[in-house]
């Protein structure tokens, strides 16, 4: 029943997304609310979100396919598939954000190797190919030596592509909110937590119901998620408190916007209450954490919280003017420091989510992602 409802959810979000895709291709970026001051919007935030799950999913897959941890036996393929689907959603989201998406080939053939974006495009390409190869190998030749080698290469690569997202933002000295050494360190932690939460959803809500290992798998993943979320909360505390004490105006203003400005609800309610506090309370208790549905739904809350968290990394830094008097210097469309995604932006993101959800479900239904014994169980 849940799977059917999720199929329906995926189909509906994709249907809404089709209008967004049409608008994006027919009218370019005209109907978007980001602009020349808030240069990146919802799609970039969702790219961060999905890319985080992709990298984290791969890291989780290594527990089974590289380190052979008994309790995670049989979960590697689901983790890889989740990673692959998330990567596709991430790349779709960021591709649609380009002004000239037909020129993406230039990054491969006429690129600037010193640019982090260049390095990431190449990194994602290699990462995607490795993930696909690992999945095919595990389906065709489980536990092969080639698979181990791929997983060995993929693990540091997954760390690189998640850390590089932090660096991509962090290198901008023009944005004090991003320009902190912690950024590239935080993102792999975010990614691993996202991957663990994705696995809670995948195993808890859509995995074989009576797998004897399942309660222990969910408990271990729950503990991992809780620990990483606490670490993440510590990062936020360290970042925000240092910045507030440091009192650099642009930085303080960005944090003020997150905590008390136009995004306060996203921070206090979506990210902290729904996405952190509630999951931490439930996932730290074995009776909930070992329960398929509880663990799965809490994993979903964690992911929702992370989606908002990604937005709260991108938007506030850009809504603070680089020069105070810029706000009124020149008026025109797309020249505003206020940002809330437009209907078209939401539609495209809805479509991207729909593709990811349907892709994951179709894969779990039609690909041999769980072993025969698991299915029989």
């Amino acid at each position: 029943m849940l799977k059917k409802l999720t199929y329906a959810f995926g189909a509906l979000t994709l249907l809404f997304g089709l209008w967004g895709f049409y608008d994006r291709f027919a009218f370019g970026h005209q109907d978007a609310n980001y602009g020349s001051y808030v240069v990146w919007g919802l799609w970039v935030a969702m790219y961060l979100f999905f890319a985080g799950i992709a990298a984290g999913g791969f890291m989780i897959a290594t527990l089974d396919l590289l380190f052979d941890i008994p309790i995670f036996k049989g979960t590697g393929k689901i983790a890889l598939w989740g990673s692959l689907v998330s990567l596709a959603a991430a790349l779709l989201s960021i591709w649609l954000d380009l002004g000239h998406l037909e020129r993406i080939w230039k990054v491969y053939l006429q690129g600037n190797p010193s640019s982090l974006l260049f390095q990431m495009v190449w990194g994602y390409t290699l990462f995607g190919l490795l993930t696909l190869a690992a999945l095919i190998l595990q389906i065709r030749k489980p536990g092969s030596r080639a698979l181990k080698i791929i997983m060995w290469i993929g693990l540091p690569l997954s760390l690189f592509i998640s850390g590089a997202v932090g660096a991509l933002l962090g290198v901008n000295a023009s944005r004090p909110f991003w320009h902190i050494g912690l950024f590239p360190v935080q993102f792999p932690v975010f990614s691993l937590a996202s991957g663990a939460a994705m696995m809670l959803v995948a195993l808890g809500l859509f995995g074989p119901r009576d797998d004897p290992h399942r309660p222990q798998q969910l408990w271990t993943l729950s503990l991992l998620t809780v620990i990483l979320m606490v670490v993440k909360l510590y990062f936020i505390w360290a970042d925000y408190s240092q910045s507030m004490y440091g009192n650099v105006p642009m930085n303080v203003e960005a944090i003020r916007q997150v905590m008390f400005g136009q995004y306060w609800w996203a921070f206090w309610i979506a990210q902290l209450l729904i996405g952190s506090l509630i999951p931490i309370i439930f996932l730290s208790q074995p009776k909930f954490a070992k329960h398929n549905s509880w663990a799965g739904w809490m994993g979903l809350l964690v992911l929702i919280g992370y989606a908002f968290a990604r937005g709260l990394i991108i938007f506030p830094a850009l809504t603070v003017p680089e020069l105070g008097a810029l706000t009124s210097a020149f008026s025109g469309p797309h020249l505003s420091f206020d940002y809330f995604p437009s209907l078209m932006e939401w539609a495209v993101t809805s479509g991207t989510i729909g593709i990811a959800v349907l892709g994951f479900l179709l894969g779990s239904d039609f690909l041999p992602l769980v072993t025969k014994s698991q299915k029989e169980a």
Partner: protein
Amino acid sequence: MLDVLEKTDVILRLQEDLRRALEKAPEDRRWVMVIDLRKCVGCTSCTIACIAENKLPPGVVYRPVMAEEVGTYPHVTMKFLPKPCMQCDNPPCTPVCPVNATYKNEEGVVVIDYDQCIGCRACMAACPYASRTFDFGLTYTQATPDGFDFVLGQSNAGDYERIANVEYGENRARKGNTSPIGNVRKCHFCLHRIKDGMLPACTTTCIGRATYFGDANDPDSLVSELVASSNVMRLKEELGTEPRVYYLA
């Protein structure tokens, strides 16, 4: 009064400086802009001249003028600060470009190759001066009614917007999703005018003669005299971007 009239217009001096600079090899020139904030009256004629010269569409601006009210009544004044691209000698915007679409040309001006730009906007995020704007493909006549009989409507009135501009010496008509639509755009010191011996549009149009332009490598140029003033400053110097736009305050 007579003395004032007999004084040479500063524009003539700048043009003479420009003529001399153009005789040198491009790599030997160092184009800089000096803006005397004490002379700026905030008329925004430079903004408008720039828009007309480069046929900028809605939402794209190369040289906004920032205005700020200072003091409390009755001691109140307005401060104006025209803000073109700083043409930094150490630009944060160029290394982040994944396809080398933006770079410093041989004359040290930060330019954009519209056919190379993929529109990722990483350069915009990196610029500490918000000197870049994105071309969303809008037109001024968009969504206006079309004409009938003798009334000039969108299809005819819009001709002006559709005619090619001449940025970088290229002819680019606005149509479909062709560049510069979908690209990042910025001030380029009117390189196409300089090539033909003309000063940037913002410089010639300034009614207060507050904007100066020229080759700082020429010790006889007016700009090299001005950048040596004691009251010269640059925006956000602490970032180490080494802007080529100087302000006299």
